Each structure stands twice: as C-alpha cells, then as structure tokens.
C-alpha cells in the first residue's frame, strides 16, 4: 500500500524540487539541509513554530533571499544560478502573498492591481487591464474598493486585495506567507476558502506557510513540519492528527483546545 502511494507520488509532476537547502544569518543557522517537493495542483502546508525558517524558505524560493547551499528547481530551472532576466521570467510564474499584504500605500487599489499586470503582461491594453482588475476584485469579493487607498481598508480587505494583486497575473505557483495571521476567525476562514477557490479555479500549486491549525485543516493536501530549520515530519493531515510524536501532538492538541 505504502509502496503504491510512493509510486503514485513519484509519478506526480513536480513543480518545485528543493535539495539540501541551507541558509544562515551570521552565526544563526536558519535552514539546515532542507529537501522537499511541491507537486502540481497540490496545497502543501509548511507548518512550524515561529523562527523555524518557514518564511525564509519561501523567500529563498523566489530569491528574495539567496540560499547559502543547496538547489531550488522551479519547472526545471535552477533558481539560484540564473541571471536577472531569467529570474524575472521564473518569478512571473509565481504569486507571493506577503504576511503584511505589502500593498503599495501610495497607490489606489486599481493602481496596485495594475502594477504587476503592466510589468508582467506587457501585451495587454488599458481596457483589458481594467477589465481584468474588475474581474479579479469580483473573484475576491471586493469590487467596491477599486478606487480606495489601502489605508481606507480593513485588515481582512487588505489581505483580499493583496491576494487579488497576486492572482491577477495568473501564476501557476502560489506562495502564501502566513495568510491568516492577525485576522479574526471568520475572516481567516474566508481567506482559507479563497485559497481553496484559487487552487480549483486557477489550477495553482501552492505552498502555504502557517501555524494556524484551522487554516491547515481547511487547505492542506499535504503537510511538512519544520523544526529547528529541518524537515521534522511529512505527511497528510490524517498522519499528523494521528501522530504519537510529542511535538506534533503538542502542536495539534494545543490548537484544538483553543
């Protein structure tokens, strides 16, 4: 049974392959020999306590941070060894939702959404851009905020607009950095729902960094747990919930009691 599952997994198309990734900040070793794969169409949740290197891992994937050792292969392209132009092409396939939303606060919502479109989809006309912005805002349930400034939006709205800005360029890979942090449970559920909608509608492969167990339960197809910069455990949600491991149990039980 296990062999068959492994065979199926091998047959799945890999989108990202990370091998022996290491990242240090001075004498602090954040990632130590991390290896993992992201398969096409799946939602992979990377779970772990704060400071275990989860955000550093996805920042290395888009090369906002340079890895010290190891390889990151995205659709057959080794991201650490390519030049700026090739890096731009690779990044065009990836949507990155930042923890803070990272909306440009000197621009309106319309300008925020137009910004990546004008740079990545250069062939689009002004009318097409405008139509795409309206359509994407409809998809995240916020068509009415199009001419507002980010400062006029609530935390949940900012997250949704940020999500809209990320998906507007039709990325095939999505990286979510703690998408539900700082949100109330209702808004968190809505964001988790949107992550699932995006997976289905845009057929994206996603890595979701979180320590919000409700979000994990809602979106995860597969889970990797990081501890002290290393892959501690890998499996399905069921594997994690049934696990006898003290650390995994503590994590899941604590969150359940909450």
């Amino acid at each position, binding site marked *: 049974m296990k062999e068959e599952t492994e065979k199926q997994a091998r047959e799945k198309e890999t989108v990202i392959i990370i091998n022996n990734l*290491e990242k*240090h900040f*001075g*004498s602090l*070793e954040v990632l130590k020999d991390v290896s993992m794969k992201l398969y096409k169409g799946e939602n992979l949740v990377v779970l772990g306590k704060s400071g275990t290197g989860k955000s550093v891992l996805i*920042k290395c994937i*888009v*090369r*906002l941070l*340079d890895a*010290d050792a190891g390889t990151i292969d995205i659709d057959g392209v080794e991201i650490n060894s390519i030049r*700026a132009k090739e890096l*731009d092409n690779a*990044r*065009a396939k*990836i949507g*990155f939702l*930042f*923890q*803070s939303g*990272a*909306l*440009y*606060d*000197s621009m309106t919502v319309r300008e925020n959404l137009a*910004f*990546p479109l004008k*740079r*990545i989809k250069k062939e689009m006309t002004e009318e097409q851009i405008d139509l795409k912005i309206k359509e994407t805002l409809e998809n995240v349930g916020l068509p009415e905020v199009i001419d507002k400034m980010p400062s006029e939006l609530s935390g949940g709205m900012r997250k949704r607009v940020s999500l809209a800005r990320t998906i507007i*360029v039709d990325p095939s890979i999505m990286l979510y950095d703690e998408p539900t942090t700082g949100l109330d449970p209702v808004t968190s559920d809505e964001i988790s729902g949107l992550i699932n909608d995006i997976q289905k509608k845009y057929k994206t492969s996603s890595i979701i960094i979180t320590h919000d167990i409700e979000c994990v339960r809602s979106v995860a197809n597969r889970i990797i747990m990081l501890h002290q910069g290393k892959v501690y455990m890998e499996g399905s949600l069921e594997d994690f919930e049934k696990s006898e491991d003290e650390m995994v149990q503590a994590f899941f039980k604590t969150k359940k009691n909450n």
Partner: protein
Amino acid sequence: MMKTIPITHLKKYAQKKTIDLSDETLSSKNKFVEIFSNIGDVGLFLWNVVKNTFSRGFEFNEFLKQCFQVGNKSLGLISITGVVIGLVLTIQSRPVLVDFGAVNMLPGMVAISIIREMGPVITALICAGKVGSGIGAELGSMRVTEQIDAMEVSSTNPIRFLIVPRVLATTLMIPLLALYADVLGIFGSWIASNIKGDVSFILFISQAFGDVDFMDFLPAVIKTFFFGAVIGLVGCYKGFNAGRGTESVGIAANSAVVMSSLLVIVVDLIAVQITDLL
C-alpha cells in the same frame, strides 16, 4: 549575485588551516570588517544606481512625479528662506557699508554672496531636511512593510523604479530651487534697501548684476547638481537599506538628514577649493 559565507563554515575552515578565528579575535575584528562591509555596500549601491540610470526601461512617469514632489515639497520653505536671506544680509551689511561710504556696493555684494554661496547651500540644507528625510522615511517604510520585496517579486527592479527617478529628480530640481532662492534673495535685499532708503528696482538690479560675472554664476550652479545628487543618493540609500522593524524608519529618516547635510557641507568645501584654483 554574491553569496555570504556563514561564519560556522569559516570557523571549520580556520580549524583545518590553524587560523585563529576565536570569538574574541572575531569581535575585535568586527568593527574593522563592518567599516569595509559598509563601504562595499555603498559602492555596490552607487554602481547599481549608475548602471540602472543608463539601462533601458527608464521610469519617466515616476521621474516626473518625483520632480513634482521634490519641487512642491520645498517651494514654500525655499520662498520664505530666500526672501529672509536677502533681507537679513542687507540689514546686517548696510550700516558698515554706510560707515565706509560704500553703500552703492551693497546690491553687488549681496548678489554675489547669495548667488555664490548662500542660495545654493541654504537651499541644499533645507532640501536635505525636507526632501532627504521624506525619501528616507518613505523607502524605509516600504522596506519594513515588504512593499519593496513585493515589487521585486512582480519582476520590477526596485532600483530602477524607486531609486533612479528620485536621485535624478533631486539632481535636477535642487539647482532649479537654488536659482529660485537666488532670485527671491535678491528681491528680499531690494525690499530691505527700499525700507532704509529709496532705491528703484531697476537701478538695484542693474547694480547687483553689474558686479556679478559668469564665473560667479557657473560654479555655483554646477555644485547644486552635486548637492542634489548627494541628497537623493543618501536618502535613497538609508531608506532602501533600512532594517526590518518600525524603529528603523525613524533611524533611516534621521540618518538621511544628518548624513546628507554633512555631505552638502563637504561638497561645498571641495567646490570652493576647486573654484579658487580656477
């Protein structure tokens, strides 16, 4: 892209090669390494700015927006300061010149001191405070809230989009603001002269510019381009390299003002020495 070698790797290598890399030795060398590391960072930043200024894909709209920002932000303050410089210089100098019977030299003397020194330097120092701190705080807050990272992920080079337009805008606008301050300074001087005695505007201007030649004017204008570049570069460098906490926004804005004001004075000193040799 350059990769950092982690200290643990260096220590392992040093053990094999019996090199002294103990914590004590490292900490005593830290300051030394930090200074050179900072110089390297500044050099790399300057190189990136120069390279992106002359590469394709110039952000013209952003440049126009920044020109408007720089000019608009400082215009009111420069107007008031320009008039006040002229008034004060005239009020302070007039009694001495009257004592020597040289009051008709007043317009020329004030015009030369405003055009050669007071106008450019005071304008640059005001802009260092107003524009430099604004750029440092804006880019610092963009760094802290991950907006610069978001730009990079959207296949946008932040140096080309954020830094180059700001540096070029300050380089172009500060000379224009300095010329504007010169004009208002001379106007202020005429007002002060007119309060003390009846002098026609035409006569005052003809006396003022009768004593000014091209070599008073040219070096003063040239140095304001350097002042502008320094203010833009320092503000951008401090903001772009701000730390991750909110505190670093304040630090970036503050150090942008201090460093650019200091560099304006240093550039002025060098410019004066060069002009003196000519």
